[in-house]
């Protein structure tokens, strides 16, 4: 499933890198707020669901070749975070949903193919 379909289906609001959504394939997902946990256990092509908003999340996503970041619970990524993500080509999306709900919906979408 590409990132655009996933974002549209869940009503996620994209903050940057719109142009990459259609061409980015989501292969799986990972959820977490501990950056070392995500570094160690996420896989390339994962969509990452988190509550963290500071710019270090961009480094993690970029280093691990993640498909993009979904920031949950109405949190707003810092301006520096969005700027850095734009520069590094990491799509960031936001939603008012809680992490549990987002993860459940993404899991179902990806399982259904």
């Amino acid at each position: 499933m590409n990132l655009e379909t996933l974002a549209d289906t869940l009503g996620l609001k994209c903050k940057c890198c719109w142009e990459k959504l259609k061409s980015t394939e989501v292969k799986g997902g990972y959820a977490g707020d501990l950056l070392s946990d995500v570094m160690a256990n996420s896989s390339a092509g994962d969509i990452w669901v988190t509550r963290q908003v500071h710019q270090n999340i961009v480094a993690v996503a970029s280093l691990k070749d993640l498909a993009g970041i979904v920031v949950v619970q109405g949190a707003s990524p810092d301006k520096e975070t969005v700027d850095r993500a734009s520069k590094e080509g990491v799509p960031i999306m936001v939603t008012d949903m809680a992490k549990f709900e987002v993860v459940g919906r993404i899991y179902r979408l990806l399982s259904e193919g």
Partner: protein
Amino acid sequence: MSGDDFSESLEGIYHIQGRDFVDAGIVSSEVKKSLQGKGISESIIRRIAVITFEAEINIISYAEQGTIQLFIEPDAVIIEANDAGPGIADIDLALQEGYSTADDSIRELGFGAGMGLCNIKKFSDIFELTSLVGQGTYLRSIVKLNG
């Protein structure tokens, strides 16, 4: 392996300023870019990215400053991290997952969970850590390119 001299295969030396979380990850990104286009597989590059990122975060979290050096040998990539930090009193304890001396300001950023050194060890083929309290810490991680 402490006596090994990789100086001829030095690819880059990167300076890291302690307590500068804004730029955290920049050195790791540079290391990753240096490795691309050299015939090294993406999965190995991602392993090295994890190692470098954790080493970088450790220097930023605990030391005034430090350096990361990248060496590319024909059969391995070597990451060396040196810092002039407080040192580690008990290395066995520091290598236990979940053990951390990070303060709240570090934890609020999602770091300091006591996983960094474990991650470096886990993603390395050869891992070496030495430290002198009050002087600093030296870490060497070797990732083999053929298996």
